């Protein structure tokens, strides 16, 4: 089995338009959640989100590209440019044939759907633009990344709601590990902040109207966000041979299904995925110093997640740190695990633990060190990234210091 390392990282999210800006915001504990600026916001009961502000697609893409790139594809391509640029790789010949793209998304081109349903149903138009289908399809982002970078190996899109990115990165990891690919470009993207995308979530009555406060006794729900995170997963020997900078190692991955409820989380399902990732990485659980939590800020997720971590780690649960950066960037749904992986990389590479901001008072059911409000310096050997999706599908990655 091959070792797998990360040699490039890229992002655009509510905290910043690239990785350095995102790290700076996470260190400061800055909040990227604010009033939504979208059409018909007055008809929504939830009017906040982690929206990427000051973004103009025309700054990055030409008219023909915009006709084909939904907002989620645009975010993906920008993040991929940063990640692949950092890796220093160019894909030609053999390497191109053995390198691919696996990305996660939940809503795909939801803005494109929203706009065009408006056109035909609300405005009564009988015609839509010829490229609506290739623009809205969930695999559009993966396909455009493969085209822009000549990635000709295995490529596809994974949709498992809030765990999409972690499932995608888990696939990429195993494909490089088993030798199916030399390099995989992986991560995920979401752009769901449109009227229909928020209205649907409102219906569940799990959204907060003021802020995302994970693990806090006064938490009152989740807040949606948008953006992308993209990484270059590379065969260790290949990276070493070309002298690439290694950001960290991907050491293990596990997934599980609760097989119980379509929305309520399960402690056992989460615990099996967490324990599975540590086992897959063949590391003692005491080496885990930081967990980037799923930490949605809902009553149900946060207490279930804390109970699962306590079950898996026993006494060590009180010695590790677990924070939820959703407090800063919101819940990026299918893209969330990818942006949150950045917090794990920052912990391992820079020794800085991103905080859980907005934390007001302790909840006895979430009695772990959640790194409240202020970032912390710490030497971390192993970090985990949790994702637990609606549908009971769980995916956890284990990362190790390079």
């Amino acid at each position, binding site marked *: 089995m091959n070792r797998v390392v990360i040699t490039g990282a890229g992002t655009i999210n509510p905290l910043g338009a690239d990785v350095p800006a995102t790290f700076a915001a996470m260190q400061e504990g800055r909040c990227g959640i604010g009033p939504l600026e979208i059409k018909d916001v007055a008809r929504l*009961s939830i009017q906040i989100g982690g929206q990427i502000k000051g973004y103009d697609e025309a700054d990055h893409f030409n008219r023909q590209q915009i006709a084909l790139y939904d907002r989620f594809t645009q975010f993906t391509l920008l993040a991929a440019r940063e990640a692949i640029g950092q890796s220093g790789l160019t894909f030609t010949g053999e390497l191109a044939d053995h390198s691919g793209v696996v990305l996660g998304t939940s809503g795909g081109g939801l803005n494109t759907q929203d706009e065009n349903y408006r056109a035909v149903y609300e405005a009564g138009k009988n015609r839509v633009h010829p490229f609506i289908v290739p623009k809205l399809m969930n695999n559009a982002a993966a396909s455009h990344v493969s085209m822009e970078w000549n990635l000709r190996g295995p490529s596809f899109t994974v949709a498992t709601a809030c765990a999409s990115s972690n499932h995608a990165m888990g696939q990429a990891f195993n494909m490089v590990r088993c030798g199916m690919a030399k390099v995989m470009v992986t991560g995920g993207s979401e752009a769901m902040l449109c009227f229909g995308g928020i209205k649907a979530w409102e*219906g*569940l*009555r*799990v*959204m*907060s109207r003021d802020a995302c406060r994970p693990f806090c006794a006064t*938490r*009152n*729900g989740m807040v949606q966000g948008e953006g992308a995170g993209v990484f270059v997963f590379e065969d260790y020997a290949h990276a070493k041979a070309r002298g690439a900078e290694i950001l960290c190692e991907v050491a293990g991955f596990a997934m599980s299904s609760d097989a119980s409820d*379509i*929305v*309520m989380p399960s402690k056992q399902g989460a615990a099996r995925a967490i324990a599975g990732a540590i086992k897959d990485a063949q590391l003692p659980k005491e080496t885990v110093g930081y967990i980037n939590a799923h930490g949605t800020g*809902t*009553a*149900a997720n946060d207490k279930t997640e804390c109970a699962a971590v306590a079950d898996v780690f026993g006494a060590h649960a009180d010695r590790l740190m677990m924070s939820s950066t959703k407090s800063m960037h919101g819940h990026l749904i299918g893209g969330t695990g990818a942006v949150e992986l950045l917090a794990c990389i920052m912990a391992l590479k820079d020794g800085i633990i991103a905080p859980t901001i907005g934390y007001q008072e302790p909840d006895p059911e979430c009695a772990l060190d959640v790194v409240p409000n202020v970032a912390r310096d710490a030497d971390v050997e192993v970090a985990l990234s949790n994702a637990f999706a609606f549908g009971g599908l769980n995916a956890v990655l284990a990362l190790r210091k390079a």
Partner: protein
Amino acid sequence: MSIKDQVIAIIAEQAMLEPGDIAMDNTLEDIGIDSLGLVEAIFAIEEGFDINVPFNANDPTASDFDISTIASIVAAVEKLIAEQAA
């Protein structure tokens, strides 16, 4: 149909029971309505009476929409109809 009978009909449908099987002092748990069923019942109440029910599943006690019994739900709906008609 009175507000009370309409609310009971909505809740009975959600619980897959006959309206006659529902007592005013029943809790939602008594008649087998879980958190998802509650959210659906509240949606049906909002649509049926054209009102907004302030309810967050993360913190059911935060609003004064009291879901402790069928009687309290009927009273809360009557209050919201009076308020939101005004």
